[in-house]
């Protein structure tokens, strides 16, 4: 890498604000987005926590051999979640991608890469959301809030505890069917809390814009045949008014979809479970 700063050196030094100030914002982003190798710590999570999270994400959106198409591992979903948890290690924090265009549909440059600065108020909200209220007066005006960092740290530790009890190994070392059995245990609130938050974040990382660190090589958009962000090109003519090229829906699949009807309702998000997505069909 020559005189270039490596990602590893960068992560080791990234507690130093002075270092960050010396680097151009896009270079910082590039370093942050570089995926840590196996066995290395992430931007926020330890090496072991990151391996556990990778194993978890791989069950939520599986790739080979469970499914022939790339999954959360190939999309680098766990790394994107780690990036969110450590969002404040760079400036501007990697929370709101910029706009209006990426360079994927006719934009001259990738505006998404230029993350939006948080002002004082927005930063307070996101520090509470990620770091929790930590007993600080200015963060506990409406009571204590558990941050995402704690939810992940404690949840991942709990997964290992459950795995140890089952098979005497950490979660990442378990066979996938045993991992699925733990993740499906509706009687374990701690597991379900982690699965809830990690599933939502994994879906963001697999199916959201790649600037957030996931959807590597657009795998999540390729196997879903999703055009992604289409501005400024948009759609025209028969693309709008005519039928699409997708395969027909079978009556059997249609019947099976009815159970998802409740998912069309918007789910209000309570502050004590602030990581849940609102979901639902947009109304307006």
């Amino acid at each position: 890498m020559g005189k270039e700063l490596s990602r590893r050196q960068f992560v080791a030094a990234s507690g130093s604000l002075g270092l960050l100030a010396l680097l151009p914002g896009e270079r910082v982003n590039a370093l942050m987005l570089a995926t840590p190798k196996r066995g290395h710590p992430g931007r926020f999570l330890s090496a072991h926590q990151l391996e556990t999270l990778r194993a978890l994400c791989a069950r939520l959106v599986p790739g080979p051999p469970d499914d022939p198409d790339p999954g959360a591992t190939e999309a680098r979903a766990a790394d994107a979640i780690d990036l969110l948890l450590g969002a404040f290690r760079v400036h501007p924090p990697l929370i709101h991608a910029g706009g209006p265009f990426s360079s994927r549909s006719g934009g001259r440059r990738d505006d998404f890469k230029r993350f939006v600065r948080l002002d004082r108020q927005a930063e307070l909200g996101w520090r509470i959301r990620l770091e929790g209220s930590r007993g600080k007066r200015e963060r506990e005006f409406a009571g204590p809030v558990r941050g995402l960092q704690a939810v992940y740290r404690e949840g991942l530790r709990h997964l290992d505890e459950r795995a140890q009890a089952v098979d005497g190994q950490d979660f990442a070392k378990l066979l996938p069917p045993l991992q699925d059995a733990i993740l499906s245990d509706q009687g374990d609130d701690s597991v379900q809390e982690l699965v809830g938050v990690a599933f939502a974040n994994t879906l963001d990382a697999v199916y959201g814009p790649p600037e957030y660190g996931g959807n590597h090589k657009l795998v999540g958009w390729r196997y879903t045949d999703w055009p992604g962000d289409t501005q400024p090109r948009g759609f025209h003519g028969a693309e709008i008014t005519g039928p699409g090229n997708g395969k027909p829906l079978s009556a059997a699949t249609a019947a099976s979809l009815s159970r998802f009807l409740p998912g069309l309702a918007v789910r209000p998000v309570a502050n004590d479970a602030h990581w849940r997505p609102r979901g639902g069909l947009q109304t307006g």
Partner: protein
Amino acid sequence: MSKPSVLIVGSGAGGSAVAWRLARAGHPVEILERGRSLFPGLVEGEERFRTRFGNDEVKAGRYFENQDPLLEPRTSRTQDEANQGVERSFVGDVNDLPATVGGGTVHWDAKVPRFWRQDFKGRSLYGPVQGANVADWPLTYDDLAPHYDAVERRLGVQGDRRRMPAHTLHQAPRRHQFVMPPNPPSHAGTLMAEGAESLGYEPYPFPMAVNSRHHHGRPRCNSCGFCSGFGCPIQARGGALSFLAPAIAAGARVHERCFVHKIGVSRDGRRATSVAYVDRHGRRRRAKADIVVVAASAIETARLLLMSRHHTHPAGIGNHSHQLGRNLMFHYFTLGVALFEPDIHAWIAPSTTFTMDDFVGPDTKAAPAGLPYLKGGICEVGAGVTLLQEADIYAALPNSFGVEHKSLMKDVSLRSHLGAIQLVGEDMPQLANRVDLDPAIRDFHGFPVPRITHGQHQFELAASAYYGPKLAEVCQAAPGSISSAVGVIPLVPGAPASDIEGPNSTAHIMGTARMGHDPRTSVCDGHGQVHGLENLFLADGSVFVSSGGFNPTLTIMALALRTADRIAGRRR
């Protein structure tokens, strides 16, 4: 003689319309907005300001434009809970709208139907409804019509008068054709409209504030599909900024991140003299003006007036009637869903491109015992879902992760094959449906948060149950439809309505400071002037007397222009 200075609280639909009219009439106008601007160059007055919105579903879910409930929570409870002494059963996101320069219109659906004649005279025409607080508005459709025209011109509303049903034009007559023709119709909307027509209904292109051609320096819409709930990356959609930008060019000034928490009044309580606010640095400040206009949206306006107690207004400013905060109304959404065999990609459109208003009512024959009539609302025909929305819908079921979820995503089942009709159901005003100040929960500034108490009237439940199956019939009749379902309130059997389609999830918020002729039963008059105060006006959904069955923002803006006209005639 210089014109009176005007201070406006809120830069959303109502506040921006007032600012536009008054700044151009020569009034010094200052706008205090609790949010920040997401449009570089806008508040600085640049003619070609930019936007930071993109086709980005992740950002939309990360409180980019919406108020952050961790900083500004709201609380809620049902009427039953309130009767049992429960202080709150929910803390978090309750009807959160964008809290940013431009307000809710930065990501609105931009559907702009007019209210109907009957909406303004519900009490006179159809009588009382037991348990509801039905009243006439202190104005008529004809009073508002010229302001509807003006707002439509400024927004650049698309539509086609020739395709509107006779009953619509009878109830909401219009002198002019729309500013521009309709967008290319979505394929899903066309199919569902055909289904509706086969049953004798009369669907037509939805009037919307979306450019089908270049207008006021903004390009035409290219149907990218990231519309309702997303900021427009090319600014093809009109909204508050259609008024705010020219207001700024005419001299109005917008102050970001200024949260107004109190309106100061004169010793005798007859004049607003100042507003107290917290600025972006957390400093407590005060500003004076000759005239104060509150346009903070129905919930926040009620909260501000309730927080502004004074010995002459012991229950909050303008609350001698004890109506302040009450008659809070939301639209309930009843849903019809069709699954189509072919790929109909309903999401490729500026949300829904068709509407039908055959279910607005009233229907006296179908009303169950105890109700004199039923009313539904306008329908949004042909809605669809985007990628992450689809992923979240599948993920809502327990243990839905894994191969099955991924297979559904690969089959693009809902994205390609689902088309929906949503009925914008009228909500009855009730005294017990209200905003008050939560006794314990504070926001990050330290001020009491708004508490929403809401319960559905039998009227909404009966209307949803009655019109819901009719939506399903339309879905079944659509060419290519192979399955249909309907979601009435409550969408999930056994679940409390408040959890599903109730106060937490709708973006249409009305009432809380209703207008009326009689100060004993209303908060402000027909021009939004708060009773008993000579220089305090309201210009948002708070002044609504009924909710109608129509998306409310066009009416908010038209009322705001009417209020501005009243102010513009004043001297210092």
